[in-house]
Structure formats: C-alpha cells, structure tokens
C-alpha cells in the first residue's frame, strides 16, 4: 500500500492522494504537508545540501507547539542573559540526529534577522543562541526550529563546563610544550656530561628550571591541589603519589641546581605532569560529553512553569518559586512540570516518561496529572500538588539515584592496586635511600630518584583510564553512551541478557496487522482511508498505524472522545474509531470503526519486531542466555519470542522483573538488562549492566549504565565486543607496566641505572601503554553498522 518513504522524515508515504513536490527538478513524495513544507523551504532557502550531508533521516514535522510564552519578561528573567547588548540563551534541541542537523540549524538561524550567533553541538544536542530580542523574538526562532521538525526546549545556563575544558586544555598545552623544552635542555646535559664546562652546565640547568616551573605549578596544579585535599582528609590516593613523585624530582633538581650537584631530574618531573594531565584531559572530555547530554535530557522542560494569576493570565516562574495550591497552565505538546490536579477539561496525556506506557491516557477534571506527562490535545490547567523532588517523578529519580550510588563508590580496582603499588615503591625508595646513605652517601640521591622514576606508576595509572577513555569515545561515536564506568567493565563478562519487549525488541509503535470487515458493503481500502482520515491529526501512537492509508478525505467536526477514541463527520456520515463496545467487542490492541452505532470494521494492531532484532539476538546467544521479561499478555510475548528462540516470561510486574534479575545475580550470573521506560528503570539500575534504548522514556536514560542513542539493537553487540577488547587491552597494559617495573626496579635499587635512563624508560613505557589503549579508538567497529546516508539526487 505504501508509495515509498517520505523524502524528509523517511516514514511511509500515504498511498491515496500523494503529497508531492518537485525539488531541484526531481519529484519527491512526502508523508504529510508539514514535511513537504520543510523540504520545500530548505530547497528554496539554498539548504538542499542538508539531504546529502545528513546521516540520519529527519523527524516527522508535527503540528507546531505554541511558543508565545517565550517572549514574556518573566521568561527572559529566567533564561536570557545580556551579553554585549544581545540576549543569550541555551536550548536543548530534540530530534537533532546528526552533524548535518547542526549544520542546518546553524545556517537557517544565522540567516534570520537579529540572530547574531548560534553554536550547536551535535553530540550533546545543545545549542547556544545569541540574538537581538527587539528584532526577532525568541518565539519566532523556536517556531522556525519546530517548522523544521526539531523540538527546541529552553534550558538554564549550563554550569560552565566549557570553561573548565578550556582551562584543562591550556594546562595540557603548557605541560606539553614545557616538557619538550625541559627535556631538550636536560638531554643536552646528559649527552654533554663531563664535556660541558660548569658555566654552560649551570646555564642549561637554570633554563630547565625556568621551563619546568610553570609545568609543575600550572599544569600540575590539579594534582597538587588533589594531593593537598587527600592529605587533609587523610585519604592518600593517586594524586598524592603523583604530586609526591613530581615534587621530589623537582625539589631535588632545584637543590642540585642551586648547590651545583651532580645530576638534575627536571625531565622526570615534567614528563609525569604532561602524561598524566593529557590522559586526564582526554578522559574528562569523553566523560563530560556523556554527562552533559544526560543532564540536558533530565532537565529539559522542567525548569519553569506557567503560573496563572487571579485573572487567569500566565506568567513564567521558576519551579522553585511554585507553591502547592497555585494554578499553572501546560500548553499542548509540553510536559507537566509538577504533580497537579486537572481543573479545566478532560484531557489526553502521554505518560510514557513515567510508565513506559505508549498509549495516550485520559484524565478527567479532579484527577491527578503527574509531572512528566505530556499534554496531547488541550492545554491543561493544573492545581499544583507537589513540586520537584516530592513529585512521583522526583521520588523515583532519587530512589534510583540512591541505588546507583550505593554500589557505585568502590574505586576502580586498577586504580586502588596502583595506589598500593606506589606506596610500596615509595617505601622501597626510602629503604634504598637509607641503605645508600649508610654505605655510599654520594650515590644515595641518584639511586632514590632512579627508583622513583623507574617506579613511577605512570604507565600503571594510565593503563586503565586511557583504555576506558578510548573505549568511551569510540562507543559514543557509534551512539552508545556509557555513564557508569563499571558497566563497561561488566559488559565484558555478561552471560545472561534480560530484555523487555515493548519498545526494545519491538518498535513500541503499533502497526496495522489485520483488517476485519464487519459490514459487507464496504471495501478494505475504504475503511482504512476513513480510519486514516479520522486519525490524521492525532498524536497518540495508535494513530501512526493508519498514516500510510490516508487518501486525503476531508473530516469535519473532528474531535477526541475521551476514553473511547476519535470521532468526526466524513461523507455526510458520523464516524467513530476507538475501543470496541458491547456490540463489537475488541481485544486490547484492537480498534473498531463505526458509522454511528453500526460497527463497520475491526483493526488489529500489533507492535512490529525490529528489523535487526533477530540477527542481534542470535549474536547475543553466542555468549549469553537471552530471556524476555515483559508486562504484556503471554500470546503477544510468545509471538515475539518463539521466532527468535528466546525464553519468554509474560505478565511480569516491575517487581517480578527486579526479583528475576536479583535471582540471576544471586546465582552468580552477570546480568545485562535491556529496556526502556520507567517501569524498567529500577531493573536497569539493578542489573550489572543496564542498557536503555534512546527512543524510550527520557528518565530511564539517567539510571541505566549505558544509553543507546539510536534505536538499534546491534549496538549491544558493539558494546559487548568493545568491553571485551577494552578488558583485553587494559590487561595487556597492566601486565606490561607490572612486568616493566619488576624488571627495572631492581636495577634502580642497586644503583646501576642512571635516573635519566629510568625516566626515559618510564616515558617510553607510558607512551606504549597510551598508544596501545588508543587502538581501541582507531580499530574499526567489529560489526559495521550501516549509515543511513541518502545518495545525492
């Protein structure tokens, strides 16, 4: 029945009266006039390149939300900042899918009058906008974004993470350049040993001191501060050890320089700082990207509410200012920011954020609407009951957050081992010093420094973090965000996989499976077209099932009948489409079309199994036993599980899912849970590895250790493969650094190794470890994932 995919969003194109347009001389079909308008606008504006640049299809252009609130003074006070006489604000842009989207937004907005600058980060979907509010109101910019199919949400000024990143980059640069210089000067000292006259030697030493000082005290400041904090808290850790090694080498060198002693060790000091600062920077950047994206998902749409004053006029206020008993308004398409009692009219809400339940729910006046519910048909007027952490949403979030932190504070074993190792080496250096002072005081300091340089845990300390950073960054490139480092370590040893059905193995969006005619006088095409026309402007997931059958019939007096479905007048006849009544009973997934009281057809809707699910599950079965735990009826679960050959458990409550996971873990299995929705959120937090699908409820994102930004089950295989390679490479690195230290330390203790040689060995060893870890980032993904690039027209 389908006439192909929509050129703009890739959804099925209705077969009846096609919506077409000629773009750059080529005829294209669209699913709806919104998508056509967006595509035409893009081509006329000279943005047609977007279609060749993009790597994922756009979002369907839905009816635009109402942004008129965005121009009020209260809103400006909450979100806008004055910068150079212009207004600046931050937006989180939903549906932004690839760098081409970011390019498009940049181009389109910069061309609007009054927009001075926009910077879009495609990885975090975060945009910073600078504009002249007098020339172009914010609402018009937001409406422009909405017209392109994006869903802009204003967010408060993010904590100045960018400034911290810049600072860290500068520290690395100073350390790198300073280290090169200091090494150059000290290298000259080594090679010229015995040949340089004393004046030249001291000149070079002063130069090395000059360039090493900013490296140690500017670039090394985070380590020194960290060491000071650890000392104050009596919790010795890596920072203390690094700082001690650096300061010992530096102080000894300064002392030697001043008193004209035998050897200086500035190179060792600067190398420590440079290598560690660089590794930490890389790790922090990878971590920050994942973190920022999460923060935006979690905070979007929740920072303000539209409070109604006595006369019913809405003014935006910060959530913190809102008091229970006050009344607020929630526009269509927005999420309720608080728990509140509905006052105005029966309304359809989408609670998928809270329950994972995809079908629209009906709320009547006097009923409670939970924070996070999205208003679907009419604006809501709510009497505030609970705000922030006292809402159900806040309670769940806090609860799951606690679960994560309860078990999450154990330090990475590698790091702890490294700390113990370093403490042992410091003791060894002390003993070496004591021994040589007693026997041959001349050789005491060189031997101690050689031991410190040889024993510097650089390679050891880098072994794990660099592997993790490289793995995180590779995974993030493919749309897998790891928020909990333990999840990556544990993914390598998973032997049980528990999956949810709806929205995980299936698309979570019902499709039409069968049409049963109850009135012999109608044809199948006819009833489908009528149903499609009735559902045309509906947003709830069931409406999607009919999108491909629209013939463009005109419906008048279309309306939603709460608790039943939709109704409207078509061809002079009153039609109703919705849940069956006693005349024509229908199952949970069925819809009945009726002309007046007379049932005409019954539609069976099913949720389709994802295209890649079978292949993905077969892949998982090579290393794990796969089980479905679903809340659905057993027939529906069996239908999905049998073809895939999976153990199926139907009608599971969230408590039963948690119990099942806890039992598997108690049996000693390593459990991975793949799911979405808040129903699964606690299971995701409980499993060794929780994997949340990106298309699911935003909340689950915050608590799963791993997020899939694309709804592609093959990413799980990528995650497991990457976790195993990470473990292998981390082990290689640890083995190398331990072996190297074991070989080199006896030489240093015996005083037969010069400190410069030990320092060089340390640097080479660190470099080797880092390069080995970077293989994780460079190596191609073990299972190539197709990129959805459209061929240029």
């Amino acid at each position, binding site marked *: 029945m389908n006439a192909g995919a929509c050129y703009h969003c890739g959804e099925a194109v209705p077969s009846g009266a096609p919506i077409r347009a000629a773009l750059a001389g080529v005829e294209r079909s669209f699913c709806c006039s919104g998508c056509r308008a967006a595509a035409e606008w893009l081509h006329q504006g*000279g*943005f047609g*390149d977007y279609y060749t*640049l993009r790597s994922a299809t756009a979002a369907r252009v839905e009816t635009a939300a109402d942004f008129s609130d965005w121009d009020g003074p209260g809103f400006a006070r909450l979100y806008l900042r004055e910068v150079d006489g212009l207004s600046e604000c931050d937006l989180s842009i939903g549906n932004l899918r690839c*760098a*081409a989207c*970011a*390019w498009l937004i*940049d*181009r389109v907005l910069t*061309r609007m009058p009054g927009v001075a600058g926009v*910077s*879009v*980060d*495609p*990885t975090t979907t975060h945009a910073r906008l600078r504009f002249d509010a007098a020339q172009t109101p914010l609402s018009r910019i937001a409406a422009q974004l909405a017209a392109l199919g994006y869903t802009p949400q204003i967010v408060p000024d993010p904590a100045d993470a*960018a400034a911290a*990143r*810049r600072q860290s*980059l*500068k520290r690395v*640069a*100073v350390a790198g*350049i300073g280290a090169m*210089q200091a090494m150059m000067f000290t290298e000259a000292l080594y090679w010229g040993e015995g040949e340089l006259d004393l004046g*030249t030697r001291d*000149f070079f030493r002063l*130069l090395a001191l*000059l*360039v090493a000082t900013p490296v140690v005290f500017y670039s090394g400041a985070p380590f020194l501060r960290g060491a000071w904090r650890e000392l104050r808290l009596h919790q010795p850790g890596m920072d203390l050890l690094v700082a001690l090694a650096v300061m010992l080498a530096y102080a000894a060198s300064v002392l030697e320089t001043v008193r004209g002693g035998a050897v200086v060790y500035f190179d060792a000091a600067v190398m420590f700082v440079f290598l560690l600062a660089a590794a930490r920077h890389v790790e922090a950047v990878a971590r920050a990207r994942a973190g920022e994206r999460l923060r935006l998902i979690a905070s979007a749409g929740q920072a303000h509410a539209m409070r109604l004053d006595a006369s019913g006029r809405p003014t935006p206020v910060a959530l913190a200012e809102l008091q229970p008993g006050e009344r607020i308004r929630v526009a269509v398409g927005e999420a309720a920011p608080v728990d509140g009692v509905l006052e105005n009219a029966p309304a359809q809400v989408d609670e998928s954020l809270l329950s994972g339940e995809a079908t629209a729910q009906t709320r009547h006046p006097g009923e409670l609407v939970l924070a996070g519910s999205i208003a679907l048909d009419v604006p809501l007027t709510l009497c505030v009951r609970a705000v922030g952490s006292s809402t159900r949403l806040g309670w769940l979030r806090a609860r799951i957050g606690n679960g994560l932190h309860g078990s999450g504070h154990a330090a990475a074993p590698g790091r702890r081992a490294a700390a113990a190792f370093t403490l042992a080496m410091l003791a060894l250096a002390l003993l070496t010093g004591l021994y040589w002072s007693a026997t041959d005081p001349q050789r005491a300091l060189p031997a101690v420094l050689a031991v410190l340089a040889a024993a510097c845990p650089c390679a050891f300390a880098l072994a794990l973090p660099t592997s993790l950073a490289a793995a995180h960054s590779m995974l993030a490139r493919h749309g897998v965000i790891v928020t909990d480092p333990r999840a990556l370590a544990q993914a390598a040893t998973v032997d049980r996989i528990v999956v949810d059905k709806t929205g995980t193995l299936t698309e979570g969006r019902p499709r039409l499976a069968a049409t049963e005619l109850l009135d012999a006088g109608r044809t199948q095409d006819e009833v489908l077209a009528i149903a499609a026309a009735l559902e045309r402007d509906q947003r709830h997931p069931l409406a999607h099932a009919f999108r491909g059958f629209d013939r463009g019939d005109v419906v008048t007096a279309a309306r939603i009948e709460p608790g039943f479905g939709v109704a409207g007048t078509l061809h002079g006849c009153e039609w109703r489409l919705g849940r069956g009544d006693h005349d024509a009973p229908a199952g949970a997934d069925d819809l009945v079309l009726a002309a007046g009281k007379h049932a005409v057809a019954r539609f069976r809707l099913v949720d389709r199994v994802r295209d890649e699910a079978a292949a993905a599950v077969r892949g998982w079965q090579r290393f794990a036993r796969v089980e479905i735990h679903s809340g659905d009826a057993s027939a529906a679960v069996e239908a999905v599980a049998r073809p895939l050959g999976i153990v199926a458990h139907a009608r599971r409550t969230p408590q039963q899912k948690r119990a099942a996971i806890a039992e598997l873990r108690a049996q000693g299995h390593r459990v991975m849970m793949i799911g979405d929705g808040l129903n699964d959120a606690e299971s995701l937090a409980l499993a060794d590895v929780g994997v949340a699908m990106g298309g699911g409820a935003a909340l689950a994102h915050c608590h799963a250790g791993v997020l899939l930004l694309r709804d592609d089950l093959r990413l799980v295989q990528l995650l497991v493969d990457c976790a195993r390679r990470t473990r292998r490479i981390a082990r290689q690195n640890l083995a190398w650094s331990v072996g190297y230290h074991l070989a080199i330390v006896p030489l240093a203790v015996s005083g037969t190794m010069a400190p410069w040689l030990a320092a060089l060995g340390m640097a080479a060893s660190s470099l080797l470890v880092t390069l080995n870890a970077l293989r994780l980032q460079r190596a191609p993904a073990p299972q190539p994932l197709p990129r959805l690039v459209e061929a240029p027209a």
Partner: protein
Amino acid sequence: MNILLVLVPVSLLLVGLALFAFFWAVDSGQFDDLDRPGFDPLEDDAEHDHDRDA
C-alpha cells in the same frame, strides 16, 4: 658556545609566542566544537547565493 646565549632566549621567545597564540585560540572558542565546522567546506556556494539574494 656563546651563540647559545642568543639562540636559547630566541627559542624561549618563540615558545612563549606559540603558547600565547594557543591560549588565544582556546579562549576564542576555536577548540570548543571540533565536529560541526567540518561540514562548512561541504556546503555548495550557499554564501554566494545568499550574497546574490541580498
């Protein structure tokens, strides 16, 4: 070896200039977004069209 007394300060000066330039680049935001600007050269003369329109 007296040449060192000239060359070494010169090299340090160059290092200082390089660092200064790098700090300036970082502060002006050139390292903030390393992904999106990669798309700028792929764009087909959109700026020229724009100029003609204007």
